[in-house]
C-alpha cells in the first residue's frame, strides 16, 4: 500500500511539471508583455514613455531573456514560494495571494464535502427506491442542477436576496470582520457566509454525482453477491450498506479525480459573481491586465490543487478497493 502511494506521488511529478509549462504558456500567450501594456496605458493617460525607459524596464523584469530561461527562473522561484513580483500591485505575488488561496482551498474542500454529503445519501435513496416519487423528484432536481450554469443560480439567489430579503449574499465575511484578525467569531462568520457559495458551486457536481451513485448502485444491486449475502440471513439495511453501497463507492471515489477540478473551475465564476475574497476574482483581473506573474501563480496553484485532488482520489480508491493496489 505504501509502495503504491509513493509510486502514485512520483507519478504526479511530471504532471506538475506539465501543468507549470502550460501555465507559463498561457501567461506568455498574449501578444506583447507587461511593459508594452504599461506603456500603452501611460500613453492613453497622456504620459509618454521614452523608449530607453521601456528598454530599462524590460531588462529589469528580465523580459528579453529567452523563454526557457524565463520559465526556469519563474519555476525555481515558485518552488521556493517566490512567485515573482506583481507589476500591477508592485508587491510580491506570494504576499497578495496567500490568504486568497487559503480561502479558495477552504471553499473547494467544503464544497467537496458538501457534494459528497448530499450526493451519497440521495444517490443511495434514489437507487433503492427506484421509480418511486422520491426517485423522480431527486432525478428531476438533479437534471435541473446539471443544466443550470452555477453563476445563474448565484445570480438568482442574489436577486432573491436583494428583492425579497433586502440582504446582500455576496462576500465571505460581514463588513466588520473583513479586515479583522482571525478569531473564533470570524470563523463562525466565514462558515455562515460560506453556505450559499458552497451550495451554488456544488450544485452541478452534486447533481452528476447523484446520477453516478444511482447508476453504480443499481448495477451493484443486481450482482450475485447480494443474493449470497441475503441467503446468509443478513438484514436488508445492513446488507445494503456493507456490500452494494461499499462496492458502488469505488467508481464513485474515482470520480473525485475530475469532480475536484470541476469544483475549482466552477468556483472561479461564482466567486466573481458573488465577489468572494478568494483567488479567482484577482486572477481574472490579473489575466485582463496581463499581470503575468500574478496570473501565472494562480493558474499554477489551481492546477496543482486539482492534481492533488486527483492524487487523493487515487489513494482513496486504493484504500477502498484492494484490487487496485496489486495492479
Amino acid at each position, binding site marked *: 500500500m505504501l509502495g503504491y502511494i509513493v509510486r502514485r506521488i512520483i507519478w504526479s511529478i511530471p504532471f506538475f511539471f506539465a501543468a507549470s509549462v502550460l501555465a507559463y504558456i498561457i501567461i506568455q500567450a498574449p501578444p506583447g508583455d507587461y511593459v508594452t501594456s504599461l506603456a500603452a496605458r501611460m500613453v492613453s493617460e497622456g504620459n509618454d514613455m521614452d523608449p530607453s525607459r521601456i528598454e530599462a524596464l524590460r531588462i529589469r523584469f528580465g523580459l528579453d531573456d529567452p523563454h526557457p530561461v524565463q520559465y526556469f527562473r519563474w519555476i525555481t522561484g515558485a518552488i521556493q514560494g517566490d512567485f515573482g513580483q506583481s507589476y500591477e500591485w508592485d508587491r510580491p505575488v506570494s504576499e497578495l495571494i496567500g490568504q486568497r488561496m487559503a480561502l479558495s482551498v477552504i471553499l473547494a474542500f467544503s464544497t467537496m464535502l458538501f457534494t459528497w454529503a448530499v450526493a451519497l445519501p440521495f444517490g443511495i435513496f434514489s437507487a433503492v427506491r427506484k421509480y418511486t416519487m422520491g426517485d423522480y423528484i431527486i432525478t428531476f432536481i438533479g437534471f435541473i442542477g446539471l443544466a443550470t450554469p452555477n453563476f445563474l443560480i448565484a445570480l438568482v439567489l442574489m436577486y432573491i436576496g436583494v428583492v425579497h430579503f433586502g440582504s446582500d449574499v455576496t462576500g465571505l465575511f460581514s463588513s466588520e470582520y473583513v479586515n479583522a484578525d482571525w478569531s473564533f467569531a470570524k470563523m463562525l462568520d466565514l462558515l455562515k457566509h460560506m453556505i450559499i457559495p458552497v451550495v451554488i458551486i456544488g450544485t452541478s457536481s452534486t447533481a452528476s454525482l447523484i446520477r453516478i451513485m444511482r447508476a453504480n448502485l443499481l448495477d451493484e444491486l443486481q*450482482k*450475485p*453477491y447480494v*443474493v*449470497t*449475502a*441475503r*441467503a*446468509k*440471513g*443478513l*438484514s*436488508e439495511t445492513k446488507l445494503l450498506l*456493507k*456490500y452494494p453501497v*461499499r*462496492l458502488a463507492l*469505488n467508481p464513485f471515489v474515482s470520480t473525485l479525480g475530475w469532480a475536484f477540478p470541476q469544483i475549482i473551475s466552477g468556483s472561479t465564476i461564482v466567486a466573481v459573481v458573488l465577489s468572494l475574497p478568494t483567488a479567482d476574482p484577482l486572477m481574472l483581473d490579473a489575466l485582463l491586465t496581463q499581470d503575468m506573474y500574478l496570473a501565472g501563480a494562480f493558474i499554477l496553484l489551481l492546477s496543482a490543487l486539482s492534481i492533488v485532488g486527483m492524487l487523493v482520489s487515487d489513494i482513496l480508491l486504493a484504500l*477502498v*478497493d*484492494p*484490487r487496485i493496489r496489486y495492479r
Partner: protein
Amino acid sequence: MSQMSSTQHTQPPILEVKNLETSFKTRHGWFKAVDDVSISLYPGRTLCVVGESGSGKSVMSRSILQIVDAPGKITGGEILLHTDFGDGAGHSTVNMIGMDPRGKQVRAIRGDDIAMIFQEPMSSLSPVHRIGDQIGETLRIHMGMSKKEAIARSVELLRMVEIPNPEEAVKRYPYEFSGGMRQRAMIAMALSCNPKVLIADEPTTALDVTIQAEILELMRSLQKAHNMAILFITHDMGVVAEIADDVAVMRHGKVVEKGDVYSVFASPQHDYTKSLLHAATQCEGPSDRRLAMRERRPLGDPILEAVALRKEYVITPAGFRREAKTLLAVKDANLQLRDGENIGIVGESGSGKTTLARCIQRIHSVSSGAVLYTDRQGNTRDLAPLTKPDLKEPWRDMRIIFQDPFGSLNPRMTVGQIIAEPLMNHGLGTPVEQRARVAELLDLVGLPGSAAERYPHAFSGGQRQRISIARAIAPNPRIIIADEATSALDVSLRTQIMDLLLELQEKLGLSYLFISHDVGLVRYFCDRVVVMYKGQIMEEGETEDVCTNPQHPYTQSLLSAVPIADPTMRASKTRTRYVEG
C-alpha cells in the same frame, strides 16, 4: 407435528415443498415460472433438480429461501421446514410461505437451517471483503460470535473444505483464489452454521471438469459427515448420475418426472427425460457417420503441420534493471493434420488450446517454430513468418468457426452480406454469382434462402452457428478450425451441429481442427486427439485409444473426472488426481 410416511426413506423429510407457484409480472400479465412443484428433501440424501435453461429450476430453489428477484413473487403453495430439537425432544414445523421476505423470521432460517451456494463463485463473493470476513459473517449473525471467534471458526471451516494454509487464506480476497478455491470457500461459508439443508444452484457449471469432480466429491463427503439434505440444481445429466439419490426433472416450470436416480435412469417415463438422457449418452462413443466415412475414404497426406510452436506473451516489458515478465502460453507444440482428418485439441481453461489454434491460423503471431501448410498444388510454405497481406491466400483455405454465436456475426450486416464477405474480398465471381452462391451455401447448412436478407438478430444461437459455418465454407476451404463451436449451445443442438460438420466434410472434403473442453464431443467427432495442459501437449493419439487407455497421468485424471450419465457406474469408477512433478 407433521406425520410423514415413506417407504423409501428411513427418515422423515426435513423440507417439503408443496404445490409451489412462483410468478413473474410481465407486460402480458403473470407468467408462472414455477408451476405446482412439490418436492421433499430427506436428511443425508441429495435431490437433483434437472432441466434446461428456462425450466424454472433456479427460481424454484430461490423461492425456498424467498430470495426471488423482483418482479418475481411466490403466489401459492407451502414450504414446510421440520425442525428436530434433537434426541426425540420434539419436532416443530414452520411454513415458510407467509413469512415476510425481509422479516426476522425468514432471516433466522437463511444461512442457519437452510444454506445456499451459487453458480458463479467469483461474482457470488464480494470482491472487496476478505474471505474470513465473509465466512465469519454468517457465524456472527446466527451464532452471535465475536469477530475473533468467527475468524477462528472460519479457519477450521476452510480446513474442512481442504483449502491449503487456511490461516493465511482467511485474510485473502476472493480474486486471489482460483475458481475451484472460491467455490470451496463458498461451501465453507454455507456450512458454517451446520445447516440441515444445503441448496446448490449449478455449483459446478462454471468450473473445469477436474475441479467439478473434486467439488462433487467434497460435497458428498461433507453430506455424509453432517447428514445434510442437499438440493442440487443442474442441467447436466452426467452430474446427476454422479451425485443424486433422487431426481426431479423440470420443464416449463413443472416437474414432469421424479423418482430415485436408478429407476429414472433405467426406465425414464416422460419423453422429455428420455430426450435429455439420449442427448447425454450420445457423445460417449465415436460417431457412426464418421467411422463409415473413413471406411469409404481413407485419410490423405499431411496438409497442416505445427513444428515446435511456441507462444510467449510479454506481461511487463523489460525496463531499467528488470527483466521482462513473460507468460509461456504454448510450449513447443507439434501437431500434424492430414487431409480429411479431424483432430481434437482438448484441455481445460488456461491450457493454451485456443492460443495454439490461433497461432496455427496466424491470428496471433508466433514466438518461434513453424506452421507448415501444403496447398492444393502440393507447395508447402511456412506461415509463421508471413505478414497479413501474404496470409490472405492461406486464410482462404483455412477458415474458422467461433464459439460465441452472438459475437462472431456482425450485427449490422445482413446474413447475405456476411456470407458473401469472403467471396467479395477474394474476388470470387460477379455480384450476381455471389448471390447465387450465398443461396447455395444457406441450403447446404440447412437454412432457407430468405435468410440472406435478414440480420443476425433474427436468428437463434444454433441458426447463427449455421450461418458461421456457411461463411466458413464459402470460399471453398480445405481446413476449418472450430474453436468450441458447439459449447454455447444446448446439449441437443450440439450433436446436430457436429453432424452438419461431418456431412459437409463428406461433401466438400474438409479437414477439421476441433477445439473443445468436452472430452465427449471430441470422442464423437475426432479421429485423433491432442491433450493439452498448461500450454503443453501431454498426450496425443487415436481418440479411442486415448479415451479407453490413457497413458499420461493428466489424461487419466481428466478422463476419470468426466461424469458418466449412468448412476450404476458410480461405484466402479475410480478418480485419479494429477499432481505435477
